[in-house]
């Protein structure tokens, strides 16, 4: 990955669940400029959906806030996506990233969002400060195409 992106986009959405679909399609439409495979794009869409959903459900806990999304791509076909919120933050990031770990009390969440992001991209990094918010950075390198 080179330092200077070939192209980049920035998107701010309100923390409403109806924007989850919009956000994942907006990012995948941007990444589609690299002409990835359908599978690569589907993986990316799923990973973005996880991060945006987490910001809305956990970060803002259903209250109103802004989700900040940036996407960049580089000469070597690497896409880098950041999803950030200014919500409650995560106390113990390592624990939160464990598969099956969830703080959701409803019994309707599997605690698999981070595991999906990890498995569907090449690299996942999570930065968070309690009371300040969370930033999730995902990178995925698309295979060469001719």
């Amino acid at each position, binding site marked *: 990955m080179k330092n200077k992106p070939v192209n980049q986009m920035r998107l701010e959405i309100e923390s409403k669940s109806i924007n989850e679909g919009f956000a994942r399609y907006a990012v995948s439409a941007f990444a589609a400029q690299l002409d990835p495979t359908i599978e690569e794009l589907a993986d990316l869409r*799923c990973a973005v959906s996880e991060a945006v959903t987490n910001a809305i459900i956990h970060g803002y806990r259903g209250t109103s806030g802004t989700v900040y999304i940036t996407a960049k791509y580089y000469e070597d076909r690497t896409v880098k996506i950041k999803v950030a919120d200014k919500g409650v933050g995560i106390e113990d990031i390592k624990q939160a990233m464990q598969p099956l770990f969830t703080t959701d009390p409803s019994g309707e969440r*599997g605690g698999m*969002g981070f595991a999906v992001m990890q498995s569907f991209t090449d690299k996942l990094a999570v930065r968070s400060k309690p009371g300040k918010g969370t930033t999730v950075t995902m990178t995925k390198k698309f295979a060469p195409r001719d």
Partner: protein
Amino acid sequence: MLTADIKIEYDAQSQTLTLIITGEIDHHSVGRLREQADRELAVRRPKELVIDVSGVTFMDSSGLGFILGRYGKAEPLGATTTVKGASPLIHRILRLSGADTFVKVLK
């Protein structure tokens, strides 16, 4: 397009409740699916639950939560849960979570 629909089929003979889901299962769409599915589960009390996802074009961990949640309601009724028509991506999510060890997954 960015939403999901659910159609219900019930076979009284085999006491099989089938939830036919189409569209995109995410946190936004899953609430309505859950409501309808749980209403049917409570009324029918089936011996077999089939979740047909062959018409699902997108699913993330919210969809996994939906499947696990319905399994959690079906299991106490003595019902088995089968996920039918799983795409490679859905299959991967089920495998990643280990859900495929207690729900049957069919292509």
